[in-house]
């Protein structure tokens, strides 16, 4: 197989509050022989909050990020659901509105850049599934996670709006019964856990302004997974991860029930199955301890 090569948009948390996500992304890429060119020029995607403030500016900044992937003539991979949403949404809007694209390009020209629309924008989870292939992952597994019940937590912005997902990825995902992460768990030798909250919201985006609502959403998710006998959760989104991993205490208080589960980034789960060491995967950076290794 030709070596896979992508432009990596790390997003902000990978460089700050979820260092383990950056470490495990690179560790898994090395194992799978995937080359990732980091877009060090990229800015924050706005996380849908800049979009609430200044829509046009958010389009210009995201178009700039994509323009750098286009310069490399590579597909952009994201490792955060919200980066994926805001980047793919920018691409969708510019590719379907010539006038808007021209207005954005007028600005980008001031810094010698152009958004053409030639690079795809895809989440690393789907790059692995669509381009690398789960069968090959299965063959490479050296430490199957066969003793674990693993609850997939998909995160809103990878699966909704489903039209945007399906436009950005080769494999369509059913927003009411997504299966990609379940398939990945199975490929890693684990037992996937079915539970009601797997495609629900973690509450991350309103943690500051509506802490109670956010905490109940987090609590419900961990409780749902616990009730179906999960030993751990796994997510492709670092924002969901932050919420589930660091906020279990507030979540427990909000729902009146003590809940807490170790939460892996999907990269860490693959890494464990492929024989990466806990140190390579940054397992010591979790607030809710990963105590089963």
């Amino acid at each position, binding site marked *: 197989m030709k070596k896979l090569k992508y432009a990596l948009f790390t997003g902000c948390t990978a460089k700050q509050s979820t260092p383990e996500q950056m470490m495990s992304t690179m560790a898994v890429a090395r194992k799978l022989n995937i080359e990732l060119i980091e877009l060090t020029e990229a*800015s924050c995607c706005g996380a849908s909050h800049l979009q609430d403030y*200044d829509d046009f500016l958010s389009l210009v*900044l995201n178009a700039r990020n994509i323009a750098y992937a286009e310069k490399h003539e590579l597909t952009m991979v994201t490792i955060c659901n919200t980066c994926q949403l805001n980047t793919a949404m920018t691409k969708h809007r510019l590719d379907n509105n010539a006038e808007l694209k021209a207005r954005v390009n007028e600005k980008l020209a001031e810094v010698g850049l152009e958004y053409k629309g030639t690079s795809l924008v895809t989440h690393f989870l789907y790059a692995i599934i669509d381009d690398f292939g789960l069968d090959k992952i299965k063959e490479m597994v050296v430490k199957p996670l066969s003793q674990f019940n693993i609850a997939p937590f998909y995160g809103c912005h990878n699966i909704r709006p489903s039209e945007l997902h399906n436009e950005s990825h080769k494999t369509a995902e059913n927003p009411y019964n997504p299966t990609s992460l379940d398939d990945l768990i199975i490929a890693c030798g684990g037992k996937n856990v079915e539970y009601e909250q797997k495609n629900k919201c973690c509450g991350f985006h309103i943690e500051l302004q509506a802490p109670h609502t956010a905490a109940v959403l987090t609590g419900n998710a961990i409780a749902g997974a616990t009730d179906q006998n999960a030993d751990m959760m796994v997510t492709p989104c670092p924002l969901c991860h932050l919420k589930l991993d660091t906020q279990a205490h507030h979540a427990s208080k909000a729902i009146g029930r003590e809940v807490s589960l170790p939460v892996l980034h999907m990269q860490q789960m693959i890494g464990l199955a492929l024989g990466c060491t806990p140190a390579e995967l940054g397992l010591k950076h979790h607030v809710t301890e990963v105590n089963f290794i």
Partner: protein
Amino acid sequence: MSTHTITTQKVNFKVFRFNAEDDYLPYYENYSMDVTSEEVVLDILNRIKWDHDGSFSYRRSCRHGICGACAIKVNGRSTLACKESMTTMIEYFGNELTIEPLSTKRAVKDMIIDKADFWDKHAKVNPYLVADIDEAPTCENLVSPHEAEELDEADLCIQCGACHYACPVVEINEDFFGPAAFAAAYRFESDVRDSDADRLIAVNEEKQGVWDCAKCFECAEVCPKDVNPISKITKLHQMAFKKGVAKNNVATRHAVGFFHSIKKRGVLDEGGLVLYSEGPSIVKHIPVALQMFRKGKITMPWNMPKSDNLDEIQKLIKSSSTVKF
């Protein structure tokens, strides 16, 4: 002439039954039926009533996706029964389907719910045109096609409640107006003829307003009329800044904080954002922040990353900004 084959498959339905007048608790009744690829969900409701149990109750009227009466939930997913094809439902959920009202908590009889919370919240956004209208005009009140486009199809809402009862925030925060009310608010806020001064203020209040939206996109996914309520919520956020209605509070500073952080470093300064948004209230985050610090999850200001070519980002922010707070 094109040929269209009708296929049939067996589906097991688990149907919510409850009569608030007689029943202490709701229960589920099971029905097995052969379902054709031509049928919509409403056909199934009709067949339950006509072929199995005449006492089964649900709302229906137009059968053309206009009246908004027949919205229910299939396997937890809000659905306008007369518009949703059974083929799609089977594709989504398989051959075991659970039929429930939009909100089991608000059930009156079977699929019929008390929608009072929905209508109360709807009424709170003044969902009508507020304008000084000349009662004896000499010519028509013209709205240009360009101005009409601003409504962005928010006027297509049929108040079926699908999004309202799919919204996880409505479920938790009883003050929250919900996506349908916000779409209605946007429909009139974006109308050039409207001059209501209270609506935008009301939808910007904490707890009840748009700032409590969790951005989960459930509303966009379920809307049978493609109103895309969350896109209207985003536009109401933007309008609040443009029209100077946005209050200086943790929610608005959370949005503006991204602007300042990107301007300074390109990437987000996470700790800086929380400090900017919360102000002195940041103390409440200290216990979690300490836990995160111990695990190497907090970046110190002197180690804060910056985007390469930051000058480009700053130049673009200068030339492309359209809002001031």
